[in-house]
């Protein structure tokens, strides 16, 4: 069997809870999470709307995603699957976002850079959990007990609205950043980088180059 450590976390999580999580550990969540992605950030921050509700109502876990959901004729919601969207695109809003949301867990796809963790996550005692796969939408869908509330559905549409979800054994997620701002992905990238030169041996860069192109394979596109 695998030696990967697994933790169950009740939400909201305390800093002491988060302190125990090492990068690479698997986590399941029970409690309240809410979805917010680009349109929510724009609306809350750039358009000045602020948070749609208080921390009691929303919880302190921001999931970068939107559910495969439909509004049923009786006004209730059918939620099928949820899958995260890539988080690096939301970097520019992070500072303001932590200030107005008070989140201490961000869940998404692919993580962010350790530089962003140190600038924004560490001072806010926050960590980043990555979804697994990333297509484990059905497993995550199973963990949703109920849709507690949906904010800004009319303004932003199903895919961009704020979905407040009560979840139970919601996961799996993998700890991508810890309270010190270390990144699991960057650790793995560094290990893989060591073998890349060998793959390219004997080949030459393309005849026609492109603006901004690099041949340094240790770099990332995010």
């Amino acid at each position, binding site marked *: 069997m*695998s*030696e*990967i450590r697994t933790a169950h976390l009740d939400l909201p999580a305390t800093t002491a809870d988060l302190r125990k999580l090492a990068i*690479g550990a*698997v986590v399941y969540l029970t409690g309240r999470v809410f979805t917010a992605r680009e*349109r929510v950030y724009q609306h809350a921050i750039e358009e000045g709307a602020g948070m749609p509700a208080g921390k009691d109502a929303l919880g302190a876990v921001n999931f970068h*995603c*939107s*559910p*495969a*959901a*439909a509004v049923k004729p009786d006004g209730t919601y*059918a939620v*099928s*699957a*949820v*899958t*995260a969207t*890539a988080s690096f695109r939301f970097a520019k809003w992070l500072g303001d976002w932590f200030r107005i949301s008070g989140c201490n867990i961000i869940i998404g*796809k*692919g*993580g962010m850079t350790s530089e962003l963790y140190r600038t924004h996550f560490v001072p806010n005692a926050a960590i980043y959990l*990555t979804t*697994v*796969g*990333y*297509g*484990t*939408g*059905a*497993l*995550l*869908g*199973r963990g949703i007990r109920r849709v507690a509330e949906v904010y800004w559905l009319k303004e932003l*549409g*199903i*895919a*961009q609205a704020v979905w407040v979800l009560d979840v139970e054994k919601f996961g*799996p997620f*993998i700890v991508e950043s810890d309270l010190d701002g270390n990144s699991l*992905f960057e650790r*793995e*990238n560094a*290990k*893989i980088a060591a*073998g*890349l030169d060998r*793959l*390219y041996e*004997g*080949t*030459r860069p*393309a*005849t*026609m180059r*492109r603006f901004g192109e690099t041949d340094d*394979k240790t770099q*990332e*596109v*995010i």
Partner: protein
Amino acid sequence: MIPLASLQRTAEELMAKAAIEIPDDYLAGLRRAADAEKGELSAFVIRAMLENYEAAKHDRRAMCGDTGVPRWYVKFGNEARVEGGPVALEAALRRATANATRNVPLRPNRVHPLWRTDHDNNCGIGAPEIEYAFHPDADWIDLITVHKGGLFGTDYRMLFPADGLDGIKRFYLDTLIQFGKRGLACQPAIVGIGLGGSKDICSVLGKQAACLRVVGDRNPDPRIAAIEEEFIELGNAIGMGAMGFVGSSMVIDCHIEVGYCHTGGMPMSVHMFCLSSRRACARIFADGTAEFRTDPMWFTDYMRRSTVEWRAPAAAAAE
């Protein structure tokens, strides 16, 4: 005459099948990758995915919350006639897309690029895409839907004859590595490579190679088939597995499709069909009956013909 109602009914069923059931050929390929995977985290990810497919099938819920960009491929038998003609067929495919979005449900992914308008039904200007092909001596219609992930794992580059096979190899590795880090491409993937054509056709060929050929299928040109096999191995030797963790599960299969190009160039595109390789197909006969399958059977001798006139098989597809 193929009745419109049976086309729409079949199309709706295809939308649900694609979203919920992982095709057998991809599943078998992923299981083989799982058996060979030594990276602990990468192996964990694949186990979770295998569980996810079970959960999706059992609960009849979408396997991935991200619908990707649902699209249609339609192959007309030369003798096929549809009630209402092609315009009615397109309306039926749009209705099926909208209905399935509400009924499965699927995430409404499609928005206007500038105004971000979302009709909550995955339909809009140019959405869903519908591509056509034809088949000689047949009176059926093949409907194929593909819901490919939409953001990462695709690239295009104009190479030149001087770049040679090494240049092709290099761009292949570049694309896999840049989008494989952090698992942006949701690998292990079926990688499709388009070689030749002009820029647009090069992209179309690569995408079709990824999405419309099953795992294990080889290009009929033995020299291209050999490159496909070499590239599977090369991709899995990067040292990267699922989610970009250390491992060997990057490429489930590699498919290359070629088209004649400008004499001075060698354009290349790379596409990665993700862990949710969603495709479903059916053949609808003149009496309205439908036969479901997972192999699109898109690339035929006819599709790959290189002669002026179409002469039945046996013709060399390679030259």
